């Protein structure tokens, strides 16, 4: 196996260990700790939205007009109708396919 591919295997193992730690961590913590400092809790609470937004915003701005339109339409419809992520994916995909293969 070439070293670069080996690095990917290590990366996956590290991600698996990190994930397992989150799944067992609460059980361990609850038997040890009484209270999480409020600012730390606020920061931790913000982590998923903050990280995920950085994967959305640049694609929206730099992904090309077709991607921008698809994301916007999927967002608006999903928010308006309170749709699941799966339905939202279908909408985004349909819009981008229509733009690429029908409109253009």
């Amino acid at each position, binding site marked *: 196996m070439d070293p670069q591919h080996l690095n990917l*295997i290590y990366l996956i193992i590290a991600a698996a260990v990190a*994930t397992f730690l989150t799944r*067992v961590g609460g059980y361990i913590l609850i038997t040890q700790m009484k209270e999480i400092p409020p600012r730390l809790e606020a920061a931790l*609470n913000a982590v998923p*939205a*903050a990280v995920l937004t950085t994967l959305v915003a*640049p694609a929206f701005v730099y992904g090309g007009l077709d991607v921008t339109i698809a994301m916007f339409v999927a967002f608006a419809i999903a928010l308006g109708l309170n749709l699941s992520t799966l339905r939202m994916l279908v909408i985004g995909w349909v819009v981008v396919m229509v733009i690429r293969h029908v409109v253009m």
Partner: protein
Amino acid sequence: MTKDDFWEGVRGGFPIMLAASPFGALFGALAVDNGFTIADAVFMSATVYAGASQMVGIELFGNHVQPWLVVLSVFAVNFRHVLYSASIAKYVRHFTFGQKFLAFFLLVDPQYAETEKRGERGLPITFSWYLGFGLIIYIPWIINTLAGAVFGQLIGDPKAIGLDVLLPVYFMGLVMGFRKRDRFLPIVTVSGLASIAGMHFVGSPWHVSIGALAGIVLAALLPPSNQAVAPTGIEKEA
């Protein structure tokens, strides 16, 4: 009795398995598109077993983000599980050490939700039930990843069949799932703007750490709100 419990778990997990299946296949296809081999994709599904974070992982890997940041992001996206394992601690205390190990490994969002629901109703949470519920989601997740990865390898141009739009929309859906959280709008606004600025002035992959850090620091600095910080609830995950 034990066997009945197991099959009751399997029946309970079945609809969730169906709902999660497209995401498993999607992960497989996108992983291959991001430079994974089929075996890598299956290996990741089998060991990490957390859909949203796997998507984040392959996206960052495909963008040549530094490994430590990939692992940190996976950790961050999965951080909610800390709350889950704390919350179900009271129901799994009677499991043996090995059973606990396996139980926490399988602790995905629906597993948590169902365990909590069952516990609250006063129904017994046996290891057999827990395992049945967990395996009917876990095993198809791996098989669907394999199917998706094989399919992904057959695709010449992912753009022609619109694969490239799926990840951003998927992540957008996840972000929207957090909208009930405290100070959602300021955090998302700041993270979004900072990541765009980071992309523009510094370049990929740094926009991820810059944007994420901006939102997290903002959340820590804002004065505590009167509104009690509600425990995160159950975020939908693929």
